[in-house]
């Protein structure tokens, strides 16, 4: 009996469409969120994450509508976020049908947001998303979609987030995101060693061996990818079969 390592497809959405950026810039249309969600649910995804990457105020209603439509397609856990600034934003996303909410930039600006969400909805519903880049100072947390340094050390911020009630860490390597050069296993293992909650590795997935590495030396509890699944370059089922054959505990859909 083992807790399975999770494979989590991520949908970055802008104005109701799934898009993909390279190193946090340059968007490309990747399809319809409902269609992709239904496909991943069928293919054995362990969870789905939906991120509003515009996060503009006027796009809010559109995003909540997308959350609600995607939720109808799923019988697996569903996390949504992007632009969550206040308790009410988190509530709206959960009410629209998500099981968990992610916070990022606004939590760095006001860490109490994490405590407020955890007190209201429980730690299991709060995912702290952090975008990390290697700088001269070490691993540093960046905000505003990776555009701006927060001056915070990644390990220290992860520990603070967890002590405030985050139930999971979604850890994105800005250096690797969209580059298809593999997960940053060093970063993932360093953060996983610092916190008592599950860590979801994100950024850079390309090959099946990248996943094998992040569950091995990376010590990740879950791994997230977007484009390689959207383009149907890899099916989730084939990835899981590959991992299972190499001793990684995964849930094989039947």
């Amino acid at each position: 009996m083992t807790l399975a390592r999770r494979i989590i497809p991520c949908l970055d959405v802008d104005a109701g469409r799934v898009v993909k950026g390279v190193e946090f810039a340059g968007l490309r249309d990747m399809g319809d969120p409902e269609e992709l969600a239904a496909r991943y649910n069928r293919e054995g995804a362990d969870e789905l994450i939906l991120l509003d990457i515009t996060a503009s105020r006027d796009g809010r209603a559109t995003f909540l509508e997308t959350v609600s439509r995607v939720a109808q397609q799923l019988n697996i856990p569903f996390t949504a976020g992007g632009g969550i600034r206040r308790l009410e934003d988190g509530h709206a996303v959960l009410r629209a049908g998500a099981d968990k909410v992610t916070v990022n930039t606004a939590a760095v600006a006001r860490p109490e947001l994490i405590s407020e969400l955890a007190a209201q909805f429980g730690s299991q519903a709060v995912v702290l998303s952090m975008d990390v880049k290697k700088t001269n100072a070490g691993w540093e947390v960046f905000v505003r979609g990776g555009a701006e340094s927060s001056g915070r050390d990644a390990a220290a911020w992860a520990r603070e987030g967890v002590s405030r009630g985050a139930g999971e860490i979604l850890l994105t390597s800005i250096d690797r995101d969209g580059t298809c050069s593999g997960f940053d296993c060093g970063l993932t293992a360093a953060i996983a060693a610092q916190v008592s909650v599950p860590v979801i590795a994100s950024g850079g997935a390309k090959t099946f061996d990248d996943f094998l590495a992040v569950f091995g030396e990376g010590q990740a509890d879950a791994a997230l990818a977007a484009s390689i699944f959207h383009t149907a370059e890899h099916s989730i089922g084939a990835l899981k079969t590959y991992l299972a054959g190499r001793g990684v505990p995964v849930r094989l859909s039947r």
Partner: protein
Amino acid sequence: MKVSIIDYGAGNLPSVERALRTLGSDTECVTRPEEIAKASTLVLPGVGHFSAFVTGLRERNLTATLRDAIARGVPILGICLGLQAMFSSSEEAPGERGLDLIHENVQALPSTVKSPHIGWNQLRRLRESVLLRDIPEDAYFYFAHSYAAAAGEPHTAAACDHGFPFAAVVEQNNLMAVQFHPEKSGEVGSRVLRNFLEWAQ
């Protein structure tokens, strides 16, 4: 058949409701004691904090009616916090009283394991189970919790191990409960709900 889902104010009802409707049941969300008193099948979903849960039930005057309904033999399925609420108390909210149908205490997961216990895990069957009928032994279920009730006789039909062996499936006469989320556990989760509905009928 009509399934009454208890709304205590903070549960994640829509996904439970959708999962039950997909199986063809007629569902209603109930918030008042008189609705619970005449319900033929009950579901008690729950997420969040034990204290918010028991307070929510109490403030809506649902606690006594719910206990009465269960004592009368009305089939009930507790989900996640809805399982924990069947116990006497929880370390999450010392001093708060649960529904007290199982006279034991819900405990925090130990610091030796990752907490919350989030993700897909397998079960260890302790005896024949109504809810797990026709489900493969190695099936995975989705868990998301930081507290759990130790597996024990006679209530636990299947256990899961995370820090200690805890009650993942409780079956005690008409009282059924699962620590995992069947509505989030894909096809096998749907089968658990179907097993409950068929048994309740």
